[in-house]
């Protein structure tokens, strides 16, 4: 059975059908395997033995491994899907599972392990970190192989009792769509021996046949017992070979422990694992055709290392071997595969199994999905031939620091001429990728046609660019690298033509299809000159269509995908035009029928209109436009930004040499300000006449693009024409002007500001509205605004939302989703405390929009102070932040000691004031800042050693604000233990949980914050357990300041909670309602939904302040009024709830009723708590005195 699937689906389809229990935890790029398994389980699809597998999402990968270990001990066939840090968390259990000789397969979409930075992309760092666990390891290199090896691993583990780790390259294989032959249920049932399954069950724990497993062993026997399993490992290679040959008998697809390809008498051989084998193989073939003698050896079974098979497969003629590792092991003699091969050859030579010892060199390639191209492969063969070849090398980068990199010819190309190659540049929101996936499926189902698709996404969540690489041909397509010379380039947004990489990918004579807002006759003159020159030089055929207008006219809004897909089929000639259009329409019929006549007809119309309006653009000879592409970053940007960041922004980061990059992962902050993304045509526009200057719009702006200042009128001199101002509405400052500046190029047009504006201007308008960008000023106005003097913090009323608008945000222009519900809280944090904050950020959305390169939003103020930000891991963030607190306390204490020692020299009055300041209120902090500055000045003139010492820690005399931030996946699940522990620590840390009630970053998986009755991935039938009440848990300690806030419901309460939490001397917890795209809402309604969440009593606003308890008052404040609307009035507006009503109305009704009951019950509890006397709350022993 042929199918076009990606690697994850290829693997999951086997794993699901030959297992009974899947224990998982979401992690990129492995999550889709688990999600598919959950989907199939939800639909009741059975495994090959007739039962429906159970899929369980755990709180972490450590939990998943533990649950899996238990399921295996219980005799169930069990599997898991993971990657990267997830696999690392499983390691302790992997030792146990292997030590107990338990058959099981872990499927790993191999990914980088976070070191100097996190990376979600593919390499073998994770699996190499698990190679010592006792698991057998099987490596597959393509979608077909991944599918087949999933079955072979299962066969071999049952036969050998040794657990298997089956891995394949994250993204390159896991996310590549390819046409493959799928194993049927019958084939799988024949391949996987049911007798061995029964044997596995027979070894399970049962009271009918009790035994003890998992003992403690002592020096007398542990060692021998560890050696006792050796025969099982010795048998593995043979059993894998046997499984492979059985597999070949049934399917016709033959594999070996290793695979050699190339010249039978090769003098040079490269050894590799994973998808790079195919690139090396095809390159070797080409080189051999031109007279070279090279070959490639793929290692499929990596553990136990098949030394004999390696020796047997290598031609006796080999003189040089290059071993390529897709991982880095700093400080080692060489990377793992290199050492294995070197050892194998050395031993074989010692034993006389090979006549001579070849020269073995080892190289690293492809870390974090770095491309491994035929040019690089040829470079490896070439390096081997070179006299004095580098013994350790890297390929694919320019290492100008250690000189490890080898040269290669980037233009070396081995693409088959009969393969059609198409590259599409789209916007994330325009449906390009979805349409291309359909195109692949359309062509993949054509008889005799094969298709491959690979998609590259950028680092931002809003306004992001996608690049689709599609290949089509008449034979299976194995080309695990990006297209570099396309026959067809689709540029789905006209502005992209200004980007260097769009036309660079076009081959000579290729077809270029441009989505152009201009009529065909005008298209040419609107194209930037640099692009025109390439079009002419490459003799491209240029077609244009106004897809945006057509889509809008037929009623498809901004979804240009159908129009452009039709145009692709019309001009590409991949399949005959009429047939292609027929297939597109048939596909539309299938995809859109459900959505009613209107949408169906609109899409069919879009196809017809596209074909009518698509035009070939005549290219006038010698006529070029005057449109120049602007510089990537402004001239005034710092050198680092110009030399490094700008390269990454323009898609040329691959060209950066090693020397350009920080060695320790430390990057300058505030770089997002240099990336003017202009992602929205509709942006916020201020109406100064109507504005009441309340500050609400700026308060909720997720992207910090709304800023306010006031200034004397004379400062207006030299203002650009579009610069707006209005009289300041404040007592005591007559004649002062006020400006609310929209940062036009950074605004995403999310509209939250409009929703938050309380002013109503007749005509359904507010004092801030969305308007076309061209109506408004841009860069000049912002520059002028920035030139106005900042408002001194001492003059700002921190206690009001109105006041906070004058505080400079130190978190700006993040790449979060337009209208993000999390970022306004971070921005507020940065405004209030940023200049003295250190931030520990859990992995998740906030670490991605907060720290994903090339540009990052945490920034500093004019005085150079700002939040210092770091991300450690997902699971350890609370502990990570506590560590920051410990260091700060330690150094503050040291600074106090030293200050006291230098009291005379520094001045007793100053020292006493410094040491006596409580630093809880903003005014105290301001005063302390001045005192510390003076202290530092005096310190510089003191020659004593203590003074030098004090200088290194003196900044700690200003109280540091430690913030621990992250999402609910962290706080409720994987980091729950840590959060709980630090809340119980009594230390002065502030925990901000931005609760989206779902794992947002990995695409909407259920967490323990997911509410009753909502659907999420792994809760597709509706969550049947109530959300954990983290607030009550924390309150139970008595020593924790706790607040639950929702900015959209009560911004003032949010502000109050943030300030109280920070001022509280002890642990604080703020749980912030964060609306999210994963709720299935129009993001513009996010604030209204927050309001409804509170109004329905679902999200009661509370504050619990132990200081109030200490003062003898009730510390529990219920800040929101009694429920005024039913829960349903809030929940039915969100797809996460309404979807269940659509799939299972009766269950939705039942859960909605129970959810309402839960809301009522919780409200009653809270109300009762709000009336309790102080003594009925736990005392804080740190404050309670006898």
């Amino acid at each position, binding site marked *: 059975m042929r199918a076009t699937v990606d690697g994850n689906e290829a693997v999951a389809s086997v794993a699901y059908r030959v297992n009974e229990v899947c224990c998982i935890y979401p992690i990129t*790029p492995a999550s889709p395997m688990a999600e598919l398994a*959950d989907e199939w389980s*939800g639909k009741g699809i059975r495994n090959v033995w007739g039962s429906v597998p159970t899929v369980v999402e755990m709180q972490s990968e450590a939990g998943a491994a533990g649950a899996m270990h238990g399921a295996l001990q219980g005799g169930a066939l069990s599997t898991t899907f993971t990657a990267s840090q997830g696999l690392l968390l499983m390691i302790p259990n992997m030792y146990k599972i292997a030590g107990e000789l338990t058959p099981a397969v872990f499927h790993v979409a191999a990914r980088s392990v976070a070191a100097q930075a996190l990376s979600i992309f593919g390499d073998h760092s994770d699996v190499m970190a698990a190679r010592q666990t006792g698991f057998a390891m099987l490596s597959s290199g393509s979608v077909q192989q991944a599918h087949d090896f999933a079955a072979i691993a299962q066969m071999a583990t049952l036969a050998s009792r040794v657990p298997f780790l089956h891995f394949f390259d994250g993204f390159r294989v896991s996310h590549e769509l390819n046409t493959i032959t799928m194993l049927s249920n019958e084939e799988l049932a024949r391949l996987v021996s049911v007798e061995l399954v029964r044997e596995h069950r027979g070894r399970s724990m049962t009271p009918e046949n009790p035994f003890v497993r998992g003992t403690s062993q002592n020096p007398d026997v542990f060692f021998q017992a560890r050696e006792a399993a050796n025969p099982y490992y010795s048998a593995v290679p043979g059993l894998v070979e046997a499984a492979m040959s059985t597999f070949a008998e049934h399917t016709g697809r033959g594999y070996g422990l290793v695979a050699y390809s190339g010249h039978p008498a090769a003098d040079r051989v490269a050894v590799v694992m994973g998808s790079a084998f195919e690139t090396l193989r095809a390159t070797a073939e080409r080189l051999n055709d031109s007279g070279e003698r090279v070959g490639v050896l793929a290692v499929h079974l990596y553990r136990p290392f098949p030394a004999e098979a390696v020796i047997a497969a290598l031609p006796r003629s080999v003189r040089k071997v290059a071993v390529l590792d897709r991982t880095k092991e700093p400080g080692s003699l060489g990377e793992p595969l290199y050492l294995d091969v070197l050892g194998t050859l050395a031993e074989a030579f010692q034993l006389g199994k090979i006549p001579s010892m070849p020269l073995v060199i080892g190289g690293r390639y492809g870390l974090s999905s770095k491309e491994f191209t035929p040019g690089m492969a040829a470079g490896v063969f070439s390096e081997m031939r070179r006299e004095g070849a580098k013994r350790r090398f890297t390929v694919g980068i320019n290492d100008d620091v250690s000189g490890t990199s080898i040269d290669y010819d980037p233009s070396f190309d081995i693409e088959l001429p009969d393969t059609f190659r198409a590259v599409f540049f789209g916007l994330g929101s325009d449906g390009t*990728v*979805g349409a291309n996936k359909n195109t692949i499926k359309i062509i993949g189902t054509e008889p005799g046609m094969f298709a491959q698709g690979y998609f590259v996404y950028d680092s931002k*969540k809003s306004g992001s660019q996608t690049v689709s690489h599609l290949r089509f041909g008449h034979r299976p397509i194995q080309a695990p690298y990006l297209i570099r010379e396309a026959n067809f380039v689709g540029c789905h947004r006209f502005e992209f033509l200004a980007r260097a990489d769009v036309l660079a990918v076009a081959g000579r004579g290729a077809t270029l299809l441009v989505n152009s807002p201009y009529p065909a006759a005008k298209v040419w003159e609107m194209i930037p000159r640099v692009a025109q020159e390439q079009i002419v030089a490459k003799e491209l055929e240029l077609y244009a269509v106004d897809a945006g207008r057509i889509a809008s006219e037929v009623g498809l809004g901004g979804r240009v995908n159908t129009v452009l897909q039709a145009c692709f089929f019309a001009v590409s000639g991949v399949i005959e035009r009429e047939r292609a259009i027929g297939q597109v329409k048939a596909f539309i019929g299938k995809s859109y029928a459900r959505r009613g006549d209107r949408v169906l007809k609109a899409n069919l119309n879009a196809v017809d209109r596209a074909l009518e309006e698509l035009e070939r653009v005549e290219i006038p000879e010698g006529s070029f436009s005057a449109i120049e592409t602007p510089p990537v970053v402004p001239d005034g940007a710092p050198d680092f930004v110009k030399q490094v960041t700008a390269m990454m922004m323009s898609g040329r980061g691959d060209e950066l040499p090693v020397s350009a990059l920080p060695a320790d992962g430390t990057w300058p902050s505030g770089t997002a300000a240099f990336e003017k993304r202009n992602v929205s045509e509709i942006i916020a526009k201020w109406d100064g006449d109507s504005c009441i200057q309340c500050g609400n719009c700026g308060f909720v702006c997720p992207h910090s693009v709304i800023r306010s200042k006031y200034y004397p009128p004379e400062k207006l001199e030299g203002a650009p024409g579009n610069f707006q101002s209005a009289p300041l509405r404040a007592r005591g400052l007559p004649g002062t002007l006020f400006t609310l500046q929209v940062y036009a190029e950074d605004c995403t047009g999310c509209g939250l500001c409009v929703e938050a504006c309380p002013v109503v201007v007749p005509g359904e308008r507010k004092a801030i509205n969305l308007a076309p960008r061209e109506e408004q000023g841009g860069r000049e106005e912002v520059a002028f605004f920035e030139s106005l003097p900042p408002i001194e913090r001492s003059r700002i009323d921190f206690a009001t939302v109105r006041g906070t608008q004058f505080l400079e945000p130190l978190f700006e222009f993040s790449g979060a989703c337009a209208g993000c519900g999390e970022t306004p809280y971070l921005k507020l944090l940065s405004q209030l405390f940023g200049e003295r904050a250190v931030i520990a950020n859990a992995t998740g959305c906030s670490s991605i929009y907060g720290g994903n390169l090339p540009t990052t939003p945490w920034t500093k103020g004019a005085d150079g102070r700002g939040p210092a930000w770091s991300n450690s891991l997902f699971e350890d963030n609370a502990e990570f932040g506590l560590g920051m607190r410990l260091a700060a306390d330690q150094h503050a204490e040291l600074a106090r000691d030293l200050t006291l020692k230098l009291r005379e020299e520094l001045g007793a009055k100053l020292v006493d004031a410094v040491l006596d300041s409580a630093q809880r209120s903003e005014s105290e902090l301001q005063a302390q800042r001045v005192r510390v500055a003076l202290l530092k000045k005096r310190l510089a003139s003191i020659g004593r050693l203590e003074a030098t010492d004090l200088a290194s820690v003196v900044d700690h005399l200003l109280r540091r604000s430690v913030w621990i931030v992250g999402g609910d996946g962290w706080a409720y699940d994987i980091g729950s233990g840590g959060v709980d522990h630090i809340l119980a620590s009594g230390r002065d840390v502030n925990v901000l949980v931005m609760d989206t009630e779902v794992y*947002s970053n990995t695409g909407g998986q259920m967490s323990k914050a997911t509410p009753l009755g909502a659907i*999420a*991935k792994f809760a597709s039938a509706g969550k049947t357990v109530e959300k954990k009440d983290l607030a009550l848990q924390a309150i139970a300690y008595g020593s924790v300041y706790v607040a639950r806030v929702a900015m959209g419901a009560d911004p003032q309460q949010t502000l109050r909670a943030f300030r109280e939490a920070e001022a509280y001397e002890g642990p604080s917890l703020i749980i912030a309602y964060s609306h999210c795209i994963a709720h299935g809402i*129009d993001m513009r309604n996010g604030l209204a939904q927050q309001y409804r969440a509170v109004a329905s009593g679902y999200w009661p606003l509370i504050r619990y302040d132990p200081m109030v308890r200490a003062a003898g008052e009730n510390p529990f404040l219920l800040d929101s009024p009694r429920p005024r609307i039913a829960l349903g009035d809030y929940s039915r507006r969100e797809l996460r709830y309404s979807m269940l009503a659509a799939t299972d109305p009766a269950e939705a009704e039942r859960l909605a009723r129970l959810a309402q009951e839960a809301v009522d019950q919780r409200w009653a509890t809270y109300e009762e708590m709000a009336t309790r006397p102080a003594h009925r709350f736990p005392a804080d022993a740190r404050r309670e005195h006898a």
Partner: protein
Amino acid sequence: MNLETRYMGLKLENPLVASASSLSYTLDGVRKLAASGVGAIVMHSLFEEEITGEADRRARLLEAGTESYAESLSYFPETTPQRASKRYLGLLERAVKLSRVPVIGSLNASAPGAWIAHAQEIESAGAAAIELNTYMLPASVEIDGRSVEAVHVELLQMVKSAVHVPVAVKLNPFFSSMGEIAVRLDAAGADALVLFARFVHPDIDPERIRIVPGIGLSNPYESRLSRTWISHLHGKIGASLAGATGVDQAEDVVKYLLAGADAVMSASALLRHGPAHARVILDSMIAWMERKGFQSLADFRGLLARPEGEDGTAAERAEYVDALRSANANFHGPW
């Protein structure tokens, strides 16, 4: 006491019918209505816009933010939502099963083909009858009255020819000659006329300077228009007549019956006071009948209807003049 009545060919235990409202959105709501003692239940309307609009909105929200960022290529699990019409039919089917009184389907489509298809689906789901909710406000100043009438008549004929169960038409009161359209619909095969549907009259919020939705619960005063037309039409057409607005207490039901209604519908009262209020209405009605010495509805139905042969126009005019005079006397008006 015999409260039985025949309405559009159906035998009802009593004339109080729960009309289409949000109470019938859930099975639980239907269960409460069925237990309340009403004589029949009209399900909430199946709106064509709801069917396509919901699918559209769902697809838009499902697609939002997908295929943009490598870690989150989608945000929702793959599920198979039922079409809104299928859910409606599922609910209707279950409602029919649990209700011992007739359940009437209600339909509001926009395209002619959809009317037929959905009417047939409603019939096969077990509805005892179908009510066509022809909500149509000819807001354009170019549509002439005759064509508005023609739409109603054609629609009815189309649905009648496609189903076997009785079909009622719920009308709005804004026809140039209400009586004539009633007679034409009767001739076209209407089994009942429901008088009247309430238009959504948007309101204006002067505080927020905004137009706000105008749906609210009806009050007894509004029943006068419906009752006037029922009293005019009683005995003049074959189709049953249902009064459908302004019912809050038993006396409102009684007034409709005195005017000649075969059934009396209420949504507002049941929403305002809860479904159990039906029992209160019925008990008070029985008490009234006892007080007045009536044994069955037949004893008083249509007692105050316009007698056959009366010139309704002249009578109305005379009553108008009387009313003004009396107002003048009471309020010292200009007359």
